[in-house]
């Protein structure tokens, strides 16, 4: 019992229960005006309050769908549909995920290369670093529609334009943390490498890269979440037909709140899954390095 209270299980579940109860209250408050309107048109005068609450929970097009409605929709559109079906969320998530991962891999590689260039060349440090920071103050997601229109006019369609946006968002955290990581060896360690007459490449491979690994994973965790956001936003413009972002866009066109919410929650689950995946890789790698017990 004591373990339960000192851990974070009970606090987290308390907060979750609190969130869900607010959600339900919100459902009742936001959906009841429409429901009262329905009663008025049907001529139902003496409805009970419990009747009203029950009906707000099962509207076809609610303003705020209650959690169980979203869960049912999630279940129906993942487990009860064939994966190849266009109404299956798994199908759409697969499309979003492929461009996320492609963009993330390119972005991470780019980030690592940039970080090595910045650490090894003072010119790169002074010229590139300020512009890399500036590049992130530009709201790239805002340019996403144009990038996609331009690239499709050039004949490049499908995965690459979306992956480009994911790359742009995910290279930055990797670069920043890799620069920090590559500079993390202490002077005494660098001196040691010098004593052994190691050249630049050897110092990079044997000292700087290994000691930057924890930083790399910290950057990659942020990067993969950003890549997912980039891929979703990349699907919004030009009325894309598939992908989680397209699901949200269609939902907003047809006023299908339940569809938007289920796509959103599914996207969040994927984000959590991706971040956990990176974390698992991080833990097993660090264990091999002997940095964790």
């Amino acid at each position, binding site marked *: 019992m004591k373990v339960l209270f000192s851990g974070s299980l009970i606090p987290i579940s308390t907060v979750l229960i609190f969130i869900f109860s607010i959600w339900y209250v919100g459902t009742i408050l936001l959906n009841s005006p429409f429901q009262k309107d329905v009663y008025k048109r049907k001529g139902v005068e003496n409805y009970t309050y419990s009747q009203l609450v029950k009906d707000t929970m099962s509207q076809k097009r609610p303003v705020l769908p209650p959690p169980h409605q979203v869960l049912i929709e999630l279940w129906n559109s993942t487990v009860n549909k064939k994966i190849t079906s266009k109404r299956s969320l798994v199908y759409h998530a697969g499309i979003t995920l492929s461009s996320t991962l492609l963009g993330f891999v390119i972005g991470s590689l780019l980030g690592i290369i940039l970080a090595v260039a910045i650490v090894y060349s003072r010119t790169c440090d002074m010229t590139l670093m300020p512009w890399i920071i500036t590049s992130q*103050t530009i709201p790239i997601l805002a340019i996403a529609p144009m990038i996609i229109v331009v690239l499709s006019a050039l004949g490049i369609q499908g995965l690459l334009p979306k992956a480009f946006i994911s790359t742009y968002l995910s290279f930055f955290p990797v670069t920043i943390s890799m620069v920090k990581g590559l500079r993390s060896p202490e002077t005494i360690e660098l001196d040691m490498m010098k004593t052994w007459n190691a050249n630049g490449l050897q110092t990079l491979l044997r000292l700087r890269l290994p000691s930057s690994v924890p930083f790399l994973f910290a950057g990659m965790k942020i990067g993969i979440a950003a890549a997912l956001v980039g891929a979703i936003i990349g699907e919004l413009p030009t009325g894309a037909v598939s992908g989680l972002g397209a699901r949200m866009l269609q939902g*907003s066109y047809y006023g299908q709140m339940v569809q938007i919410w289920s796509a959103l929650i599914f996207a969040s689950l994927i984000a959590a899954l991706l971040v956990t995946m990176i974390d698992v890789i991080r833990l097993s790698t660090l264990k091999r390095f002997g940095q964790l017990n």
Partner: protein
Amino acid sequence: MLFNLFKNYYFYLLSLLPTIISIFFEGSVSGFFLLISFLLISIFTKSALGIICSGLILHGFVYYSLTSIYEANISVGLWFQVFASWISAIIFVSKLAFIRLKNDFLQKLMILIVPFFFGLWVILLWEIICVGFNVPLLLLPAPSLIGVQIANSLDILYADFYQTVIKAVIPGYIYGCGSAFILSIFIDRSPFLQRGLLPIGNLMSVMPIVGIAPIMVMWFGFDWQSKAAVVTIMTFFPMLVNTVAGLQIANNIDHDVMSTWGSSYWQSLLKMRLPKALPLIFNGLKINTTLALIGAIVAEFFGTPIVGMGFRISVEAQRMSFDLVWAEITMAAIVGSTLYGFLALLERYLTFWHPSFHNR
């Protein structure tokens, strides 16, 4: 020995060869002499004055080649010279990066000057390539075209700026960051809430929250209210996580000192813990500037009155008037960088004591 010589003068060779070749392909003679004199000066000089002179010569060459490109006076030799000048620019910027000035203020200014020249060169190259190769407007408009478009459509740009930034981004940013700040002070007092809310906050700050944009547009309508709501929610969690983490920086010794002086909770919070938390608070605020702009612009994709930066970008992109889109992007970049720069300056002013500023 020979290899070392080659290694040290590699870039000079890379610049010298195309310069010489250009003469045989109708490259202009004056361009040739300008480039050669740049290379000669920069090989033999190490002083700041010499480097500035060489830079002036280099920019003279760029001005010269730009005018010949505008007059459609293009030859193969010119492209060799442009390539050589680009390599020369790398030499120039890397020399600039190693300058040691005696004046402390000027030396600090170099942190701005070096990247400025790099940016200038990228824009110049962009202009030269766009005009010289007749790159279609659709693909990439030349910077000069974008500049003309900005000057011509100032009223549209201002209306969009007012709608998106003043009406949506700034109120949303203040609500989001402000409420997160207040909540995190409450969370900080209760370990139970810390353990319950922090993992959820951490999870939420990596979620694709921008996806709530369509929901907010349905709830709050097409005007700025829905955009401000999206910005509020997007900026909330990064600020919360950072502020709570910042408030935990103070260690036992700091607390002991404050209690030795008999300070109350609020005194200790205001005079010790909040100042200590400032670096992380600013971290959250800086991350949020970009998030806020993104949130407002993306929310405009889902429905908006016929004004606003996101609206303009998506509509004009589909109408293929890309110079206006680029003008809009330039403005977004300027707004984003200005907000970020303002916060960075404020951070420097308020957290001058932090090691990351004097251990440069």
